């Protein structure tokens, strides 16, 4: 009974994985099919035509450049804000903290369209027209919250005694932040910057209302899909899928290598302790040191 239900369970997971991945295979496959309408069935023949068309599309390149510019701006705005907010909220308690925390995470739970429209209206009041700058500000308003949460989590493992020690030893405030606090936060800041970058590239809802007449990649794809669909979008999708897969597999590979190195080091240590233990009992036996 137990093994049978386990078998069913594995089957479910397998189907779930297929469900997640097959749509991407279909979409990628359609990029290589020589059919005017993106589909894998019927299979007409292999072509690279859609990639050529994609690369010749000047509008796509402009949208690509815009997307990267906005993403960089969002990283520059949201990483310092998120870090500052996390440090601030980490040092207060009580009702103030609850209220501030609620305000900080609220943008995550707000629909992107609402953020986009409110940003557009607010800046319009001061005569700032819609454009990519507003997209960056709108996106930063909720992406900062992601950075804040990451940094806040990292701060939990921070030993404040280190700062005390540095101050006692005569460090000035800048040195405390630069030499003690920031180095501890680097992993969270790095992760925050990466998440901010990719969240910004992904964003559609906020961008749609704030972009003015500029295109970003998601808006470009959207307008392409709405006005006569051609498989060039699939070509773009296939490129994205392959790039994503390569990056993720690289990180997984790097992680495994690191893990192996750690295990190897632990083994070495274990052998040395063993050797020492044996050595204490039987002084005549000597082990060659590993490594």
């Amino acid at each position, binding site marked *: 009974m137990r093994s049978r*239900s386990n078998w069913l*369970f594995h089957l479910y*997971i397998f189907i779930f*994985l297929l*469900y*997640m*991945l097959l*749509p*991407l295979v*279909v*979409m990628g496959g359609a990029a290589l099919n020589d059919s005017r309408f*993106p*589909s*894998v*069935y019927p299979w007409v023949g292999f072509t690279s035509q859609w990639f050529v068309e994609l690369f010749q599309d000047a509008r796509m390149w402009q949208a690509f450049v815009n997307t990267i510019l906005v993403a960089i701006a969002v990283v520059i705005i949201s990483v*310092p*804000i998120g870090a*500052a*907010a996390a*440090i*601030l909220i980490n*040092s207060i308690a009580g009702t103030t903290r609850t209220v*501030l925390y609620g305000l*900080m*995470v*609220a*943008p*995550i*739970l707000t*629909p*992107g*369209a*609402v953020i986009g*429209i*409110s940003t557009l*209206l*607010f800046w319009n009041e001061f005569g700032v027209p819609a454009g990519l700058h507003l997209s960056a500000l709108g996106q*930063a*308003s909720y992406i*900062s919250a992601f950075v804040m949460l990451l940094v806040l*989590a990292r701060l939990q493992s921070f030993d*404040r005694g280190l700062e005390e020690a540095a101050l006692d030893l005569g460090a*000035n*405030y800048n040195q*405390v932040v630069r030499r003690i606090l920031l180095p501890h936060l680097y992993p969270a800041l790095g992760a925050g910057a990466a998440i901010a970058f990719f969240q910004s*590239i992904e964003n*559609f*809802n906020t961008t749609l209302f704030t972009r003015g007449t500029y295109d970003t990649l998601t808006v470009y*794809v*959207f307008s392409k*899909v*709405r006005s006569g*669909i051609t498989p060039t*979008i699939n070509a*773009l*999708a296939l490129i994205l*899928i392959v790039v*994503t*897969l390569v990056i993720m597999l690289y990180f997984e590979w790097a*992680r495994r290598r690191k893990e192996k190195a750690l295990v190897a080091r632990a083994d070495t240590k274990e052998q040395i302790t063993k050797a020492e233990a044996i050595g204490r009992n039987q002084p005549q036996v000597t082990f060659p040191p590993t490594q």
Partner: protein
Amino acid sequence: MSELLRRYGHTLTWTFVALTAFWLLVLVILPQLYLLEESFRLYLPLADIGGPRDVYTLANYRSAFEQPMEWKFWLPFASKPVILPIEAPIRVQVFVHTLLYSTVTTVITLVLCYPVAYYLAKVANPKNVPLLFVGLLVPMWVSEILRAFAWFIILAFKGPLNMALVNIGVIDSPIRWMTGFNSVTFGLVYVYLLFMLLPIYSAIQSLDTNQIEAAKDLGAPGWRTHWRVIIPHSKPGIASGCVMVFMLAAGSILVPTLLASTQSRWFTEIIQQAMFESQDWNTGSAYAFMLLVTCTVFVILAMRVFRVKLSDIAR
């Protein structure tokens, strides 16, 4: 606060405060207040602004309740609408459908994801989990619009799904998937699935496996172990997933546009129509505010039902 001053001195502390204040005031609170204020004002020609006609009014909100018409109500997975015996304003109909299908999406993703989250956290060989995650996360990193687009291809009348089903012999003739809210629901579930999976996974993972073992040793059948031990422990994750999926689904623009049938209209389309087609930003902000209130109510409901704090939901 004095704590911060002592550690980092005046300059740095005020920099932190200034950055946070800029974020919360200029990027978050004031824009929302403007949205609210504008939603109570009329869309007027430039000359009339500040004049006698520029008054606060509920007209924009009232416009959501105009144009009553026959209520064609789409039940989940029905191929034909039910004609309700009452008339309702068109925007109210759209709003109700949006609420209903965002909820349906939330429930489906929860049912689909819970077993997978449990499997990843407690059943799978820990060595394989990272690789499984690579498989699961690839769709996540390929953007939302492309995930929806994939289903546009799959669900086409002469698309791969119909062809596969006909060839296997499950169905005799192709099915029209893009009727009612079917295709939109398919799309929403696929696109936002991982926002449900990840929080539940991390919640179950934090449960001590010994507790599950103890329940089993004491003779609890599998379902009761889930009901009494695992699900109560993973409540914050479930709440978080439900809130995220509901909010993303109700606020989605891409999926309902890409996978729309002729009958499925989404509330965000009504907002877009006001903003872009009528260029009436005031009415647009009134509708946007209604969406915001809806999502806020859902967050509060989820906090009440699951008895969790906001800090459990947004982590």
